């Protein structure tokens, strides 16, 4: 299956990307996607402790399953207001 990944703020700067497409095995979780992304982007891996994940418009746990066509966003510490 194929998932779109979105990077923001420090994660965007670490990867040099705003978005990329990720091919994953069916049934892969958010955590599985992270493992792939961290392998692919060495500067991204150290950010893990400060990142949250979102699938679509909602925060998602690492154990959450992904589905084909979904958007996975990496959410560094937010600073709105």
């Amino acid at each position: 299956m194929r998932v779109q990944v979105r990077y923001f703020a420090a994660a965007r700067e670490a990867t040099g990307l705003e978005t990329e497409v990720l091919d994953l095995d069916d049934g892969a979780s958010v955590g599985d996607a992270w493992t792939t992304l961290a392998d692919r982007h060495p500067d991204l891996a150290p950010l893990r402790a400060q990142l949250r994940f979102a699938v679509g418009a909602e925060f998602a746990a690492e154990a959450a399953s992904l589905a084909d066509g979904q958007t996975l966003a990496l959410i560094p510490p937010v600073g709105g207001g």
Partner: protein
Amino acid sequence: MAFSITRDPIDAQAVYAAVAGHAEGSNPDGAVLVFYGTVRNKTADRVVRYLEYECYEPMALAQMERIAAEVKGRHAISDLACTHRVGKLEIGEDAMVVAVAAPHRAAALAATEDFISRLKQDVPIWKKEHFEGGAVWIGTPEDPQGASEPIREGDEVP
């Protein structure tokens, strides 16, 4: 409840009007509160040059809706609206305007604080502070203020 993200200067009057507009003679609200989060010239001891905000817009709007619904469940308010700006912001410009209408002021004040505090935790908007001598994403471990005083506790404005 009206929420928006804009790259242009915020039209605060429109945010106010989104909660304060009532047909003639029908106003149930004794209190309208408008909060402006503006760009300060200093953060702790750093002299700020300008800020850059970025946003994951569809999620930010969805989270604002969700948080506002929670806030409305906790406080007796009639309506709430928020516009957040993104892009480069100069000192003194408005980063965010929140408006709340309520029958009584206590609920309006409490709901304003509740909404902003939750927004600072869960709405995907990021702030890069460009100060004299560097730049930092607020709230990250690289943020000297964020380390001791996490932005996620919602006690920093903006």
